């Protein structure tokens, strides 16, 4: 038992690093404030969404928004919106614009939406619900 504890100290990821991050970050708290000019990206994460692959879609969106420094975009999750057969669903709410609903999303499609829609402001028409379900 003692052996395994010693091994944990040596190789396990320590909380010391978390303290260092805290010290680095504390001066910058509040950079990502939520306000009315923020774009919201919402992924359905109920049973229907999860079963059809929403988890990697949400992870991809959240990672891409962070790595591309899209500070004005908030990625969040929601429950079932009642369109289970079209999951994974991603809704984009931009201030002053109509909501855009993307259906049957994959991580690859999600990256396209980040590039085209969130960065360039061009809706990816072929994944939008009205076009995708014909």
């Amino acid at each position: 038992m003692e052996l395994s504890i010693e091994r944990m100290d040596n190789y396990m990821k320590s909380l010391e690093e978390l303290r260092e991050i805290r010290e680095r970050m504390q001066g910058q708290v509040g950079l990502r404030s939520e306000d009315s000019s923020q774009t919201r990206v919402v992924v359905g994460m109920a049973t229907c969404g999860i079963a059809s692959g929403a988890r990697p879609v949400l992870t991809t969106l959240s990672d891409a928004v962070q790595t591309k420094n899209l500070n004005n975009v908030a990625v969040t999750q929601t429950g079932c919106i009642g369109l289970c057969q079209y999951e994974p669903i991603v809704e984009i709410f931009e201030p002053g614009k109509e909501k855009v609903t993307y259906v049957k999303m994959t991580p690859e499609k999600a990256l396209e939406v980040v590039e085209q829609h969130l960065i360039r402001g061009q809706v990816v028409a072929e994944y939008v619900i009205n076009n995708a379900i014909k």
Partner: protein
Amino acid sequence: MMPELSLNILDVAQNSIRANATLIEISVLSDAKKDILAISIKDNGCGMTKEQIDRVEDPFFTTRTTRKVGLGIPFFKQAALGTNGTFHIESTVNVGTVVTATFTLSHIDRMPLGDITSTIHMLVTFNTQTDFLYTYTNNGESFSLDTREFKKILDGVALNTPEVSAYIKEYLTVNKQEIDHGAFY
């Protein structure tokens, strides 16, 4: 059916969040000698009445208004019982709910645990108001992630801050590797 048990865990934990839990305890335990994989999700949310518990395993019961079926619990139960495992729900109104599932580890029909690190990372970073205690045990060795402890250290820096989020991912990945030596469950 969920293709990975880690997705069942994500799904059931979402119920806990909707039940306004402030603490969700998730345990994943595998033991090769005992040939068992045990998963439990315990919350301190609003709980269920006896009538609700009786109906929650019925696919045509849901509290949602957006659709008429509720497959989360039936999926999880089916995944467990299909491996000669067990499935239990205990719940008390205003106290909380515990969902426990056990699986025969070596059973051919046991779904893989899958990307449990993604599930926990997602729960922790997307529900920063809720606390999580995650414990991963393999053949008697274990590690845990307690967001209450993390928050104490972080002193106001949010769990979804990019640097902290990346740290949590690495914490989960490295420690899991150290405990199960990269075994694929």
